């Protein structure tokens, strides 16, 4: 069986989807859940999370010992647009 690699954009969409779907009563999601559910290593996810916060797709919510991540309105919009273009690219038999 061939190994299927995810593209960078796909990984970002997986992180945002996890942040949306596994948010604890709207209080965000911990980095552990993001690592497990989006299947990204700690080293890689910290870099991506920094970038997503910078561009406003995720919001950082500091807590006592750690911090949680919540998807922003802009992040929700990104997922909607991503879904459209994912279908568009898939129509060509390609991966986004």
């Amino acid at each position, binding site marked *: 069986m061939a190994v299927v690699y995810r593209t960078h954009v796909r990984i970002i969409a997986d992180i945002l989807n996890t942040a949306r779907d596994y948010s604890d009563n709207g209080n965000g999601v911990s980095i552990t859940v993001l690592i497990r559910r989006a299947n990204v290593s700690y080293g890689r996810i910290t870099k991506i999370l920094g970038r997503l916060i910078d561009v406003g797709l995720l919001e950082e919510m500091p807590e006592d010992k750690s911090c949680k991540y919540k998807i922003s309105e802009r992040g929700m919009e990104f997922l909607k647009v991503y879904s459209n273009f994912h279908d*568009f690219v*898939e129509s*060509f038999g*390609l991966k986004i």
Partner: protein
Amino acid sequence: MDLIFESVMNLLGFGIGLSIGRFAYRGYTNVGSPTLLRLTFAFLSISIGFFILWVQSMFDIFALSKAADVDSILVIGLGFQALGYFFLAFSHSIQSLTFKHMAPAFALVSLAIAPFFVIPGNSIEHIIRSISFILLVYGATQTMTSYMWSKNRNTLIIASGLALLALGEFIGWYNFIYPGSMFYYASIIVKIAGISAIFVPLYRFPMGRIKVGSSV
């Protein structure tokens, strides 16, 4: 009358290619996917190709053929279209990471060089057409293979569109054997049918303004 028909068809191809290219570019600016950038290059090149062919037909309509080298304009137009088909084929080959998957692409590109040696006294136009044909057959085959896995109806329509574009290039190449016949016009009609078939499944996507902001 034939020339007017040809110019209208080329203008139609330009419009459709431009619409798909603009939508792909909008996707690239919002999502930042390299696949969308490759699709942008592909459809903008195809669109520019149709535009140049339209310019060539305008030269013919207004009897300016002597003022410009229309054959060179035709070659440039077909060259842009071949570049677009290359980006479509490249998008498929780049996603097949192993040599095992790349091998058919290499074999087909090698075949594309064959006309250089096979046909005596051939022109650049026919060489470009044969390269386009090979690239389109590769793209159509890969898209059809994707359909086998996904069973996505839109993928099947796009694969058929690419196959029609390939058929159009083949008929255009056949014009080499019977010059001045109906083959040239048949080629244009089939090519426009092909690019229209690609546009049909994309019509349901919101072609209007989409803006999230800077891409990630």
